[in-house]
């Protein structure tokens, strides 16, 4: 399939206007571009579910509705800078996906999805001084934002907190020192 056709298809379905489309528009700077992420919900759902997949123990991020939290957060709480990084990152990823696999992300195989995100994770995992300066200057990277929000959204979701972690809404008592049992899960809240 022609790459551009596929891209048009995806963007068309997800409601992105293509009138001036010549490749997507890479946003720079900190202008307000908010209000666009709802159209990416399918892509974001797939992304969060690769980061935290369903396992025998508990459903993954998609079933935990983490995509909704990611969008709420990015639309309402993020800086323009980081929003733009995030939006660019989504578009980049989709473009890259088409280049490499000839498919949009949602339609890639599980291995392909994993491969793509692992690369992004490695790129964004640098904890050095340069990356700190870059974060401060340009805002966190796309993948850094995505992973942070996915972890937070999942662990504070009903599924994440109650099925994957141990959640006690009203402990009623404080046992300051307990012996860790074999399959003890981490507490969901502190």
């Amino acid at each position, binding site marked *: 399939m022609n790459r551009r056709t596929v891209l048009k298809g995806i963007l068309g379905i997800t409601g992105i206007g293509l009138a001036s489309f010549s490749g997507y528009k890479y946003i720079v700077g900190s202008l307000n571009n908010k209000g666009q992420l709802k159209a990416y919900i399918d892509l974001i759902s797939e992304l969060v579910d*690769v*980061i*935290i*997949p369903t*396992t025998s*123990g508990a459903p*993954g991020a998609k079933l935990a509705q983490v995509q909704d*939290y990611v969008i*709420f*957060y990015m639309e*309402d*709480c*993020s*800086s323009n800078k980081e929003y733009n990084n995030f939006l660019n990152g989504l578009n980049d990823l989709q473009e890259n996906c088409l280049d490499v696999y000839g498919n949009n992300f949602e339609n890639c195989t599980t291995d392909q999805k*994993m491969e793509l*995100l*692992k690369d992004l*994770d490695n790129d964004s*995992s640098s904890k050095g001084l340069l990356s700190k300066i870059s974060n401060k200057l340009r805002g966190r990277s796309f993948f850094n934002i995505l*992973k942070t929000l996915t*972890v*937070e*959204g*999942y*662990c*504070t*979701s*009903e599924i994440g*907190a109650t099925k*994957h*972690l141990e959640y*006690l*809404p*009203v*402990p*009623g*008592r*404080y*046992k*300051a*020192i*307990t*012996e*860790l049992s074999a399959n*003890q*899960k*981490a*507490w*969901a*809240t*502190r």
Partner: protein
Amino acid sequence: MKIKQTENNTFDAIVVGSGISGGWAAKELTEGGLKTLVLERGRKVEHIADYTTAFKQPWEFKHRGHLSNKEVEEQPIQSSHCDATNKHFFVKDVEHPYVQVNPFKWIRGYQVGGRSLIWGRQSYRLSNLDFEANKKDGHGVDWPIRYEDLEKWYDYVEEYVGISGSKEDLPHLPDGVFLPPIPMNAIEKHLKEAVSENYSDRVLINGRVANLTQPKKGRGPCQYRNLCSRGCPFGGYFSSNSSTLLDAHETGNLTLRADSVVKEVLYDEETKKAIGVVIIDALSKEEISFYAKIIFLNASAIATAAILLNSVSSSFLNGLGNSSLQVGHNLMDHIVNEGTYGTFEGLKDKYYEGRSPGTIYVPRFQNLNNETENVDFVRGYGIQGKGERENWQAKATVGIGVDLKEQLSTPGEWKIALGGRGETLPNYDNKIYLDDENKDQWGLPLVKVDFEYGPNELAMMDHMTKSSEEMLSKAGFKNVGSYRTSPAPGSAVHEMGTARMGNNPKTSVLNKHNQMHDVKNVFITDGSFMTSSGSQNPSLTYMAVTARACQYAINQFKSNLL
């Protein structure tokens, strides 16, 4: 403006403010038989019924803990101290502006109960090391009271409030009437033992907190949810709403008026007494006068000073009771550092159940005596902290997918965070005053805050950071580090000192009974009265001093001396 005094607008006593000290004034005065009007500038908050987020689950918050950009715009200053779960107990800065001559965070809770709903609940007595400090090193003026004057009042309020803590027999941090302490977890215990092994000048103790480890008079016990700042539906911690105001109400002597912004205290030139206050109804903006024989100001240090400065009469051109020109001056807040942290590799077989609302505490250990003298600064600081095993909120994770998911559900490394709280010296130049040009929505002059830490505070901050790091390193912690900065002044939310007590009316505002030297029927028992700051969290002292002053005021009232 002269409004007639009628039965409806006349009381025995008026209390301005319903926070932690105002609540106590309300309880003591009403129980003493005085018909008392409590004026609160903020909205009504009913115990339990108005703790709207208390039972919300994490997933029920659209942005989880985060404030939205719109909310941060409304609360640019408060937002460093609140989150999505408790923001409704912090003011919207846009509605209540003030002027920062230098950066100063004025964290406020305008509602019935004030900041007693959101306080840190740390409760420590001052000692004579604190009460004698000004006299000894010459900063500020001498306190007109000593520990002996306050001791039984500490007992009295602790018995009522319910403070969990351990007896330690430290002369500079007197023991109190304690409920059983909140126990230490494995890492906290480890640090306590290591501190004992490594130091002879200090100990690590259970934090003393106003959380009920046993039930008290229909309140509590604490359920160990650690969600205190949402308001506790179990009454697990002390607030005006859960206790003092309810008991005041029970006497039948309490009238509580919310949405009442106090404009000024009315002064009568003939009797040389205050006769009442003028309020502005926060909603209708109507001005109303109330009259009483006794006025207690408990609006919090900055607001109380602002009310005095705005109460101008021909006798007091510089503000009520301000012949000393000290009103608004000597503003203090504890210096805090942003914190020290470290991780610990052992104790992997230990965990805990329940979430402690308490802390650990290293009481002051500098400048206690000749052996602990520090040449870099006078006075001292204490260190508070908390240990936990990292969960997803703190963990650095690697990778994605099943691996990542596994890491999230595994209890992580033990870690401890420590933060120092140091004494601030009284300094005339640190002050609040009124803005002659800019007014708020009620036509009242804005408050200007002009405050800066001096070299003594900064030296202390440096020391608290280094000593915290050293304690953790010596205890075998790894990755020990600190944020080597202090957040903006005001961040401790311990503002105090703006109408200080003293023996000399020329250099102080209040006498040893918290009466204004100049106007004997006005009492001030919020943080304004603090002659020095100590390093201890101050609320317990405000409560004890309030109860003491109320007893004096009631006796004076009954003997027709006010």
